[in-house]
């Protein structure tokens, strides 16, 4: 047999071995942008898929029918996988989830420990991505969250995820948690899980209509609100924004935020923008009792000054830095006291002890929650104001 015939024959085996069985046309897929998970009264799991109507989103000339940019289809089953398969009955085209952005979990379901049930499928299925953000629907069911029509950004899932990323970046009041983060927090013994909440503000019914996005002030909008605290895989309580920010400070994930400090008797006269922050957590064991020391280093600039203070005087800057340090410390303390009260180590202090004192950790591991509740925690904040913005003094000072 000539060499080239052998070559062609051996090449043709590739065709037999593989084949085009997995080929599918893009137009035959329902691109899923968000999944909502609720629990029905009969105990079944209800899965909702937010499917993108591509031609409505891109606004292609002629192709748009004026329909809603996203459609929500839901179905139920004993497991999520079963429910997802059943969804094929009402979703027009096969579900294609790799572009999933957001997973919304019903608050009630999370309280019953539904989060853990959800995660296995996401880690196991090859079409699902673990970088989708996880959020808890606050005060409503997950399906309703997916059904809200949102202005400006057409796909609500994308709107929420970008909003979350921005919020974390500019305020530090929320922490982005994707499926990987949730899984690692759930499996860690020295850290409890926190997940941001999302709620509908305004009229829930009106928010689901297309008219919602046709008016300048929408009737119902999605709002990121609060941070859910988990203990033993179950949602137990919500942190407010101040407390969430305290957590973010301790985790060292503050990239930028605004803190107001007192000036000449006005409690919120100066706004300081944080530009850089760093948190260092050290654990110490004394008399077989662990303690935690948190050192926060912050650098910022004056964002807004509404008092007559003379900032050309270095002492004024030093004074303000001290006030700011106190302010940050207060924020952190409020978060810590709430966490200690509920006995949930959302800061991961247990992980710190485990890393720094692995031998001692074995002793604390079993009853860490109780130990955390009366842990001795000291906070040092080093606040610095490096810049004063485009000018030094306020109008009030110039008027004097």
């Amino acid at each position, binding site marked *: 047999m000539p060499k080239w015939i052998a070559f062609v024959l051996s090449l043709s085996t590739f065709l037999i071995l593989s084949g085009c069985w997995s080929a599918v046309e893009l137009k035959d897929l329902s691109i899923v942008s968000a999944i909502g998970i609720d629990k029905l009264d009969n105990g079944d799991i209800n899965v909702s898929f937010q499917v993108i109507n*591509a031609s409505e989103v891109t606004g292609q000339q002629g192709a748009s029918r004026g329909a809603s940019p996203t459609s929500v289809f839901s179905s139920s089953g004993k497991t999520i996988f079963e429910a997802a398969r059943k969804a094929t009955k009402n979703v027009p085209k096969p579900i294609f989830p790799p572009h999933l952005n957001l997973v919304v979990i019903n608050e009630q379901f999370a309280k019953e420990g539904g989060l853990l049930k959800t995660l296995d499928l996401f880690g196991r299925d090859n079409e699902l991505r673990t970088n989708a953000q996880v959020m808890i629907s606050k005060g409503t069911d997950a399906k309703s969250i997916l059904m809200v029509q949102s202005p400006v950004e057409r796909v609500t899932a994308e709107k929420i995820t970008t909003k979350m990323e921005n919020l974390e970046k500019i305020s530090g009041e929320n922490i982005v948690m994707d499926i990987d983060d949730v899984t690692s927090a759930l499996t860690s013994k020295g850290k409890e899980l926190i997940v941001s909440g999302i709620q509908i503000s305004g009229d829930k019914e009106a928010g689901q209509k297309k008219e919602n996005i046709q008016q300048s002030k929408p009737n119902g909008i999605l709002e990121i609100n609060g941070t859910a605290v988990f203990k033993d895989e179950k949602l137990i309580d919500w942190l407010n924004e101040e407390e969430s920010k305290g957590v973010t400070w301790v985790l060292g994930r503050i990239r930028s935020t605004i803190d107001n400090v007192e000036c000449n008797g006005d409690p919120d006269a100066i706004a300081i923008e944080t530009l850089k922050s760093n948190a260092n957590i050290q654990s110490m064991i004394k008399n077989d009792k662990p303690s935690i020391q948190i050192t926060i280093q912050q650098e910022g600039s004056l964002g807004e000054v509404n008092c007559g203070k003379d900032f050309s005087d270095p002492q004024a800057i030093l004074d303000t830095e001290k006030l700011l340090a106190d302010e940050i410390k207060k924020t952190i303390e409020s978060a810590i006291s709430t966490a200690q009260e509920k006995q949930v180590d959302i800061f991961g202090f247990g992980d710190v002890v485990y890393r720094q004192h692995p031998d001692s950790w074995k002793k604390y591991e079993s009853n860490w929650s109780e130990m955390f509740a009366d842990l001795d925690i000291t906070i040092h904040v080093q606040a610095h104001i490096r810049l004063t913005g485009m000018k030094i003094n306020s109008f009030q000072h110039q008027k004097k």
Partner: protein
Amino acid sequence: MRLKNSKKTQQISSPSEQNGKKKPSQLLLNEGLEAGNNYFKKSLDQNKKIIKDIVGETSDLIEHELVLSSDPLIKGVVFSINGLVDKQQVGQFILKTLLDDKLKEKLVSSKSSLLQKIEKQILTVNEVTLETESDKTIHALLSGKSILFIDGIDQAFICATIGGEWRSVEEPTAEIAIRGPKDGFIESMSINISLIRRRIKSPKMKFEVIQLGKVSQTNVAITYMKGIANAKVVQEVRDRLNKIDVDEILSSASVEELIQDKAFTLFPTMLSTERPDVVANSLAEGRIAVIVDGTPFVLIAPVTFSQFFKSAEDYYQRPEISSLIRILRYIAFTLALLGPSLFIALLMFHQDLIPTTLVITLAAQREGIPFPAFIEAFIMEVTFEILREAGLRMPRAIGQAVSIVGALVIGQAAVEAGIVSAAMVIVVAGTAIASFTTPAYNLAVSARILRFGMMILAATMGLYGVTLGLIVLIAHLASLRSFGTPYLAPFAPFIPEDQKDGLFRFPLWSRKKKSILSNENNPLDTEKGLNATQPSETGDTK
């Protein structure tokens, strides 16, 4: 009728060497020639008959009878071919001298023989050779020289009066350099040789001329720098050329086809150029050029894959710019090869690899498209190939019509009609533009053909198929050799010195040595690949 290894080469640079040497000629000008080779006789009439018997019955043969002197009666005849000779030279330097009034004195006064007198004292033409055999004389006649017979002399005077009309030296059409020299080769080999010689005034440069084609008797020159070019490669070029056994050689493309290393490959293993500066540079690097009379394209060997990405312009611009543009060409070649196939693979198999926003846009565009992505791409690519072919073949006067219709077919109208998606038009158009950046047209054509194969692989197996295709392609490239030199050198095998003019172009001052791939000091074992069997000989490759 095999002429293997029988042709004798002659050096154009020293034509006088050949004089007087008598070689048994086996050349046959014409297969229909009955008389075969004849030796000239003393009688003028007989000589005239010999020539006319062979060449006669054609209107472009000019016969001019002369009477040199009436007492004693000396007659002669001049033959030439209309259009091939410089008539002014024939008139001034042959006819006028022979018909001069003072000729008689010269003929009588001198003691030497009539033959010597005419050759040495009378003919003022630039170059005169004497020939006794008819077939060589007729070859000279058909090459544009004039033949003079004198009654009583059994030899022909061959006067170099080659002339006639040539296209003038113009700017090359296929290879354009903004800052480089503007002259390009033309169809005349002697002018082409002069264009190269003007650039390298070195005695080392040799032009060996042989005649190829049993009927066409085309002059083919092997050009190289003695002492720089690898002597073995030169010998190999000589051998392969001598093995050519066809009737006509009408272009350098047929020579390339007959002497290239591998018969069945889409990749060119010889570079063809119409720029004398490229040939001069290649010769200085130790490469060998093959000039074929009648074609403005000169072949260069051995060449490597990277050679086809170098443009003459690279050496006339700053090295930084040239390096960047050269990298751009590699990227564009990859795009031209893989553009549609990657797009098909992503659209049909790997929708999860496309960024979300893009996948939504693509999905929206594809909603109304009736065909699968592969069929769509195939239709578009074939349409583009048809347009390109139409653009090349049609008369220039109707060129505008095609571009208008083409823009409609591959453009807005097709998208608006909902037959193809806008993204596919962008991919196909981008691929087409990318394919034009390859300086070597013949390599760009390879990419065009391979693109379709890659598209089929992508449509059946996705990125897996594209990867398989690339593996086979690279294995094939690695197996290719150009006159012994590995095709992927200097990348594989890796030659550090030659990297200075590979992917990048280093500044000239940093390159102490010329490319070592092609010259005498070649570190690679090139002999293994040298003895490639000619496809024309065995009908198969080695």
